[in-house]
Every structure is written in structure tokens, then in C-alpha cells.
């Protein structure tokens, strides 16, 4: 990462932190003037523009356009989810985040997951809507919606994390992604982010060590996105094949987890009869 990129990352993070601090509710719940909101929106927009410069435009025009569209919608929607006073608006902006993430899944070639995310989170958001309508006070009138918990410290922490992630992800330069061709390239396989398939083709040819065995185990033909001839597998059959051959235990565990969560939700919400004075010392079978 060059020094210019470090400065740009710091600038982006500072702008974003200032913008989100201005957009968050005040710590003591006093009403912020409209000017503070406008300044926060401008700062956050500038930070988003600066954040755009970290991205590399993907190759074809249409997919690049959609990548920018979905990413900007996801990040801006995330900021609005966090800063909205009204929980209904938070849920709506979260829906935009989910839809944009599903679009990004599509662009990354995960069609089944895109559909699954939309279906699962649509249900989750509808349930959240019901809860907000049932429990929350409308139109941001509740004082806990108009006050936030130590917003300065929270903003500092989260944007420090964001800066660290930018700093770590920045130097992923293309020259570190190499094709492992022969024994003289073995040092490349110790670098991070060499494609797993490249490592496997090298290790299956030459290496009989434990590391080679591990890599071969990790990249079996069922778990590869492409079949041996090099053509891409269709999404749903390939994913199902990987899920039910390599990750069968994972599927079982996920089912068990859902079952336990179902029991837990029923047990937690089940209203217990309140114990009235004089009833506590009676034996249980006398109680109706």
C-alpha cells in the first residue's frame, strides 16, 4: 500500500466517521438541527465517493455498472439502517441492504444463495415489521430512538476497525496471485491467496507430504466450481453435490441447530403463570 493510499484511506475513514457521528442520534437525545443532518449526509457521501476509488472496475460494462449500483446501495442502505430514528425506516433500509447483497451474490455467481437470501430475509423483515408495529412507538417518538449510547466512542471504534480492514485489504496486489507451474514456484504456495486449484495441481503432481494431502482433501472434484473438463457446473446441482457429499455433517448440524432454536424460542416465550402469594408453598399438583 503506497503512502498515498494510506492517506486516502485515512481521509475516507475520517469523513465517514464524522458523517455518521453527525447522522447518529445525539447522546442525550436533544434534537439535532437540520444543518447537522445535511453536513453529516454530505460528509458520508464524500466518504462513499472516496471509498469508490478503492474498487477496481470489473471487466464488462454491464456487470461493472451493476456491481457499483449494488455496492453503493448496500453501503448507503447500511448507513441509513443504523442512523434512522424510526425503526420502521431502519427495517426498510435493511431490506435494501439485503436486496443489494443478493445482487452481489448473483454477480459472484451464487444464484441459489441470492434467491435464498431474498426469501429468508424477506420473511425476517416482515416479522421485524410486525414486531415494530406491535411493540415500538411510532415515528421515532420514543426517547431511546432519539438518543444513542456513547455515539462518539462507538463511531471511533467501528471506523478504527474499518481503517484496519482497508489497510489490510489494500495491498492485495495482482502480482501476488500467481500460477504455480513448477517446483521452483513452491514458495508461492506459502503466500496467501494463491488460488487453491493452482496449488492442488502442483501438489498432486509432485508432493506426497502431509500438506499436499490436506490440500487435495480440501479441493476434491465435488467441491470444485468447475468439472474436470473446465466447464462451470450448474449452480444448484453443483452446490447440492458439494453440500451432500463433502459437507454432510454440516447439514446435519444445521438441522440440529434449527431444531434447538425452535425449542428455545418456544420455551422462552411461553408465558408462565405468575406465582401469587400463598401459592408458592402449595404442592404442584394442587395448582390447576
Amino acid at each position, binding site marked *: 500500500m503506497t503512502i498515498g493510499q494510506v492517506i486516502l484511506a485515512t481521509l475516507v475513514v475520517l469523513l465517514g466517521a464524522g458523517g455518521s457521528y453527525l447522522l447518529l442520534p445525539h447522546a442525550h437525545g436533544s434534537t439535532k438541527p437540520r444543518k447537522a443532518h445535511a453536513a453529516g449526509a454530505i460528509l458520508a457521501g464524500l466518504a462513499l465517493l472516496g471509498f469508490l476509488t478503492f474498487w477496481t472496475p470489473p471487466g464488462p460494462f454491464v456487470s461493472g455498472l451493476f456491481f457499483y449500483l449494488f455496492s453503493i446501495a448496500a453501503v448507503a442502505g447500511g448507513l441509513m439502517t443504523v442512523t434512522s430514528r424510526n425503526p420502521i425506516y431502519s427495517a426498510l433500509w435493511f431490506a435494501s441492504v439485503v436486496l443489494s447483497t443478493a445482487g*452481489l451474490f448473483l454477480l459472484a455467481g451464487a444464484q441459489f*444463495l441470492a434467491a435464498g*437470501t431474498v426469501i429468508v430475509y424477506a420473511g425476517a423483515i416482515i416479522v421485524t415489521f410486525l414486531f415494530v408495529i406491535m411493540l415500538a412507538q411510532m415515528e421515532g417518538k420514543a426517547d431511546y430512538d432519539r438518543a444513542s449510547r456513547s455515539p462518539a466512542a462507538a463511531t471511533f471504534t467501528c471506523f478504527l476497525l474499518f481503517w484496519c480492514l482497508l489497510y489490510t485489504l489494500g495491498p*492485495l496486489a495482482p502480482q501476488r496471485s500467481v500460477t504455480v507451474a513448477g517446483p521452483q514456484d513452491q514458495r508461492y504456495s506459502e503466500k496467501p491467496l494463491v*488460488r487453491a486449484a493452482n496449488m492442488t495441481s502442483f501438489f498432486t503432481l509432485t508432493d506426497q507430504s502431509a500438506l499436499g494431502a490436506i490440500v487435495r482433501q480440501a479441493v476434491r472434484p465435488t467441491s*470444485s466450481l468447475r468439472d474436470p473438463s473446465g466447464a462451470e457446473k450448474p449452480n444448484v446441482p453443483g452446490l447440492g453435490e*458439494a453440500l451432500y457429499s463433502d459437507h454432510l455433517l454440516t447439514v446435519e448440524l444445521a438441522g440440529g441447530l434449527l431444531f434447538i*432454536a425452535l425449542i428455545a424460542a418456544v420455551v422462552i416465550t411461553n408465558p408462565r403463570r405468575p406465582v401469587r402469594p400463598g401459592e408458592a408453598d402449595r404442592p404442584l399438583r394442587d395448582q390447576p
Partner: protein
Amino acid sequence: MTDVFTLDILRNYLLVGAALFSLGMLGFLARRNLIVMFLSAEMMLQGTALSFVAFGRYHGNWTGQVFTIVILTVAACEASIALALVVVLYNRRSSLDVTLWQDIREEGVRAESRTEEVTQAEPLEPVLGPESYPVLTPAGIEPAHPEQPWLERRK
């Protein structure tokens, strides 16, 4: 065979995932509404899932997508348990404020500085009721009916 999903494109996805994760963490730390905190936690999961899918696509195997399915499962479990807890907590205190539950913190941890005047937000301008509606001046002869204003019928 060159893959169109290069390291630069992988970095794009990782950056977006990092941004979503940081924003979700900000919401989880700063907001006081339990439902908004729940949504922020879901947003952190979205950022992580995006990174997993991009990594899986880059390395050319299904493991990222399988892990994202696991994340979907965990998110569903989390949603059911979190909303059940929200219902129980709301029944106890009739409020979604998370700072009301500071007294269940660990022994010896300093309470967040919370006095009454801190938590009391400034009141919004009061919403005026029907008594503020415009009133027509009575005109003409008073009809022979018992005076029963419509405002009292509402009670």
C-alpha cells in the same frame, strides 16, 4: 485458463463486506432500540457472507457458498431467539430500551453513566388533540336537545 474473477474483483467484494460489517457494528454499539440492534447484527452477518461467497468464487470451490448457507441457518436461529427475548424483555419493562437492562451486567463492571436526565430525551413538540381543532361560532336558534359535545362521546 484465465479466470475473470481476479484478485482485484475479490478485493472489491471484501471491501464492501468490510464496510457492511463496520456499519453493523456501529449500529449494534450505538443504538439503544433492541430491534435496531438486531437488524445491525444481521447486517454484520451479511457482510461476512459476502466475503465468504467472494472467497469461494475466487478459489473456485463451493465451500464459501456452503458456509453462507450455514450463516443463513444461524441467522434464522438468531432471529427466532432474539425476537423471543425481545418479547420477554418488553413484557417485563414495557420498553425496547436496552439501557434499562444494565443491572444484569457482570459483577464489578462499571455502569454506563446513566442518570435520569441523560436518558430523558428532549420532548418533541406535543401533538395537539381534538381540543385544538377550529371551532365554529354557534349561530341561529339553539335547538332543543341536551348539550352533548362530540368530544365527550369519545370517552
